[in-house]
């Protein structure tokens, strides 16, 4: 069978895998953003102990390979009696890791806002909430977008690690197809093509979105 025939035969399976990869990406992204927000609140807040915990969390989780986190979520937690399905172990591991990155992106976004902006808003008589909502966050968001979208691209690629714990994502399908056909070259090439196509599509969309947000403000 030629490469194209093989691809045609396995494409539906690959696309089913892509759907799993995307679901995993989406769920991990939600968790990572929520966790990142909590980390920023804790680290910039006034409660010392929370700030220390958040800082410790970031230091540790940023330094550990995602694969270690993945195996911990899947195997180690199971040993402790918490048996997570593979998909959710993936969400937890990726969310826990990317939460640290998003937390840092959000923090640097907030820090990028000129202190004079807060002063000017405060001097107008705005409440603390209004200062954040109307002045600081809109500017911090703009600074957060480029690293934030970059993180998302990496997150999509890192979902391929869940193959190792048996989640039927795109990489899992490619691996299974390679084993069944004895054509690893063709099958992993196809996986690469599907990842690549999706990556390009998404980064185009994100870049356009970023540009729109920026253009609206100049």
């Amino acid at each position, binding site marked *: 069978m030629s490469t194209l025939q093989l691809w045609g035969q396995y494409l539906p399976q690959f696309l089913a895998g892509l759907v799993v990869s995307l679901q995993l990406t989406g769920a991990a992204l939600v968790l990572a953003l929520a966790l990142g927000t909590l980390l920023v609140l804790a680290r910039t807040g006034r409660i010392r102990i929370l700030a220390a915990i958040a800082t410790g969390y970031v230091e540790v989780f940023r330094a550990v390979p995602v694969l270690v986190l993945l195996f911990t979520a899947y195997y180690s937690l199971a040993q402790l009696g918490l048996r997570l399905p593979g998909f959710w172990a993936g969400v937890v591991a990726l969310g826990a890791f990317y939460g640290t990155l998003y937390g840092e992106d959000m923090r640097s976004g907030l820090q990028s806002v000129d202190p*004079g902006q807060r002063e*000017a808003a*405060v*001097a107008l008589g705005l409440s603390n909430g209004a200062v954040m909502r*109307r*002045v600081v966050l809109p*500017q911090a968001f703009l600074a957060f977008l480029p690293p934030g979208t970059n993180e998302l691209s990496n997150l999509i690629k890192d979902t391929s690690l869940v193959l190792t714990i048996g989640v039927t994502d795109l990489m899992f399908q490619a691996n299974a197809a390679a084993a069944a056909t004895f054509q690893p070259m063709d099958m992993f090439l196809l996986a690469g093509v599907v990842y690549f196509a999706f990556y390009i599509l998404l980064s185009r969309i994100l870049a356009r979105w970023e540009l729109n947000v920026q253009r609206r403000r100049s």
Partner: protein
Amino acid sequence: MSSDVVVDIEGLTKRFGPRTVFEDISLQVQRSEVVAVIGPSGAGKSTFIRCINYLHPFDAGRIRVLDHELVGGGAPPSKATLRQIRMQVGMAFQTFNLFPHLTALGNVMLGPMETKRVPASDARDKAMALLTSVGLADRAEAYPRRLSGGEQQRVAICRALAMDPEVMLFDEPTSMLDPEMVGEVLGTIRGLAAQGMTLILVTHEMQFAKEVADTVVVMADGRVVEKGPARDVLEHPTSERSRTFLTRVLKPLETVEDGQEQGQHGGQESGPGATTALGGDHP
């Protein structure tokens, strides 16, 4: 005490850690009075003016703005007191600090909409009227980065005026401006003074202070070294410290005017422009 006192400052003292920025400063500002605060770099002028709307907390003394009082040291003022004071005290900054994600109009509308729940249409009408009054009606939809420094500062003044403040603070409003834009901003401030707005401004524009201010306060080494009617203080300073300061600021001006550069600047703002470069108070 006269009911016409808008700002009453008594014994104001500010420290940054072990360093005393200024000590025991008292100042009463009457309605429609224009007070210029001058003095050498590092004298604490900007820090002083920023205490009035509590952008900086202070360590001792008290500030009363109409019916609301801030007391130094001790517990910080209540949120309600701070809000009341900040709504009555407008401020323009050295670096303008316009909100870059909002248009000129949006900048001017924000305060009343957020703090007084003024409907957008009313806020818009008022903002347009203010922008028109400073000659910027046609720039209303422009974002700050498309505006010149002078235009930005005028928008920033409108932003503060939209809150109908009882007193306006100016923290070196022209020292970040190119010389050719200083005049338009000073013109706007002059207009406010003519309308009877109470003004407190930190400035290096001696000529402007002489022309517009009723009272000049000279700060040096963390103290008020001289205070009095503008012309008296600027032309016949009595304290030794303000005399040295004024000589240093005004002398280079004379050399510039006598020297070969004469004619290059032209206009009445050229002198102060030169002193700004020499006596800048930038951190």
